[in-house]
């Protein structure tokens, strides 16, 4: 079993309690003014950073009578087949099978930042201002989930005043999401559960009145990003063996030819 969170864009009011709860549980300090400015609208210029694991994205979509407010909470999606996990040279990023949380262990990290470029959602961040920088990212509150058999939900989920986020078994949440979409009047939801199938599925899933790509969530295919790389790495031992045999074979053939040629040369001389 793996946990998931279902985020419902029709219930979210964009209050950002989730961001505050995240900061206080993870003891993350405030970001610089530049990065959290509210200039240009409620969404500000917020980005995930080494001090901010989650933030609320806000968009006004359509105009006139069609105008809609749309919210989307951005944090690590906790993929079922995480690109960062396959990428990490030292296995510092790891998906815990029991909970589905993709966690980071700085006891293993060497700071190569491959996870940052490998993540299709652009989530892992780096302590650029530090002399000894580590990777930082949302932990799915792994330390809360693990506290007991039926541990606590992630901090952001518990803080939500409108129950826009639901924490539970991922498969059950998918059923719930579709039930909610099917029961709703036409137009309340886009008929898509973002995260159900994207890059092989993610723990965080979204249902929303607008397409999630309009909230600048990336459009992604259903194929896990790790697939081609894993295939290539799987072929490597065969490649090495083949190359070894080929080179040794060619060497023996050319040496033999050389010997035969040398022999003929001797004969001619004699």
């Amino acid at each position, binding site marked *: 079993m793996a946990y998931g969170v279902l985020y419902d864009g029709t219930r979210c009011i964009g209050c950002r309690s989730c961001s505050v709860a995240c900061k206080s549980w993870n003891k993350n300090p405030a970001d610089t003014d530049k990065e959290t400015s509210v200039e240009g609208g409620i969404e500000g210029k917020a980005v995930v950073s080494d001090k901010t694991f989650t933030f609320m994205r806000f968009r006004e979509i359509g105009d006139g009578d069609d105008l809609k407010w749309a919210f989307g909470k951005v944090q690590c999606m906790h993929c079922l087949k995480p690109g960062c996990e*396959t990428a990490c*040279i030292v296995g510092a990023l790891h998906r815990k099978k029991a909970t589905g949380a993709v966690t980071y262990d700085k006891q293993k990290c060497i700071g190569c*930042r491959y996870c940052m470029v490998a993540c299709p959602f652009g989530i892992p961040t780096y302590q650029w201002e530090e002399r000894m920088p580590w990777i930082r990212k949302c932990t799915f509150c792994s330390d809360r989930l693990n506290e007991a058999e039926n541990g606590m939900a992630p901090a952001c989920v518990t803080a939500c005043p409108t129950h826009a986020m639901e924490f539970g078994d991922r498969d059950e949440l998918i059923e719930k999401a579709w039930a909610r979409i099917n029961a709703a009047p036409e137009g309340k939801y886009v008929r898509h559960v973002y995260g159900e199938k994207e890059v092989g599925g993610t723990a965080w899933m979204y249902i929303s009145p607008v397409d999630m790509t309009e909230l600048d969530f990336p459009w992604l295919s259903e194929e896990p990003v790790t697939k081609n*790389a894993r295939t290539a790495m799987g072929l490597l031992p065969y490649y090495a063996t083949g190359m070894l045999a080929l080179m*040794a074979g060619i060497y023996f053939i050319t040496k033999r030819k050389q010997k035969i040629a040398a022999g003929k040369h001797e004969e001619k001389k004699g």
Partner: protein
Amino acid sequence: MKEMIERKKGFPWGTLILSVLAFLCAGVLVQRYVFGLGAMTNMSDGRGWGLWISFDLYCGVALAAGGFTLAALVHIFNMEKYHPVVRPAILTAFLGYLLVVLALLVDLGQPWYIWRMIFNPNIHSPLYEVGWCVMLYTAVLALELSPAVFERLHWRIPLKIIGFIQIPLIIAGIVISTGHQNSLGSMLLIMTHSIDPLWYTPIIPALFFVSAMAVGPAMVIFEGTLSGAVFGHKISQEVFTGLGRITSGILAVYLIMRLADLAVAGQFDMLFNRYPQNIYWWIEILGGVVLPIILFNIPKVQQSKKGMFVAALLYIILGLSFNRFIMSSIWLVIRPGYTYFPSWQEFAVSIGLVAWALMMFQIAMRLLPIAGHHGEEEAKSEHAAPEATPAA
């Protein structure tokens, strides 16, 4: 010889420029280790990998391919004709790999923890393979180069030992280096949605492998022409012509692979309607691949040192380096809200490391029997008076 002495009388502008660049690089490195990466690079959460990965790792490793291609041609395929250029090629490759290792120690956030790689393996990570191979192949290249040092020092016993394991060493070198040429491509496979679809394909590793094979002989033409001009030793035109033919042959295979890949993916239309990315594609393929193939096969060009040099340079810059930059930087999607252009310090480190490598190359060429070396038997008889050291 006379010419060389006269050349030495002039003011050594080249050495001066190289020294300035090298010391500037050293200064910037102090800044990097004292204040951290954020203080001197323009890298950000939006672009975690910058110039150093594109230039020093991706281009550096590919351009060092001369080492394994020439070792294979001479020692495995037994093409004696190319023997005089094997050692310069191996020296270039060795310095290239040292440069890659140094650049990685600058780029890593925690270089002092690089040993963690040994105790925390992730065998699924293409970078894990690259890391190990860079380490092993640098050692192999050092061993492949060591006979030149032993000959210079007249150490007979180590020379004999190396001679005994030479062939297994060279084969190991070929397997390791080609293995991670294509693993560099596998590293990009994970970036399914960030690399532009004109360049993303599941066969990136194979393309990297073939293009690296092709750049080996081209680098030898490039480096042989330059060091011929600087050190005054002659490499016969026949060697260059042959190397050009090998490069053009492999490039033809590479071109077919690139086109076939687009055909299979049904993406030919992108060549015309995916603007502006398609402009880069056409420059890369027409200027960097098709043009060198044609040039390498024109008899007039084959007879001209300059012509071969230009053809080789076209492929090295437009066909190979440009391709690596496009895939690892230029057309790699950046997180929304960020931009990236390298800071002057990033340029200073990359250029400065090349300056260090060039100075090392110069010193090695003067001190060691590298240029015009003709095979073991001859080298042994040259012991008493190594031919290649008059300038020292």
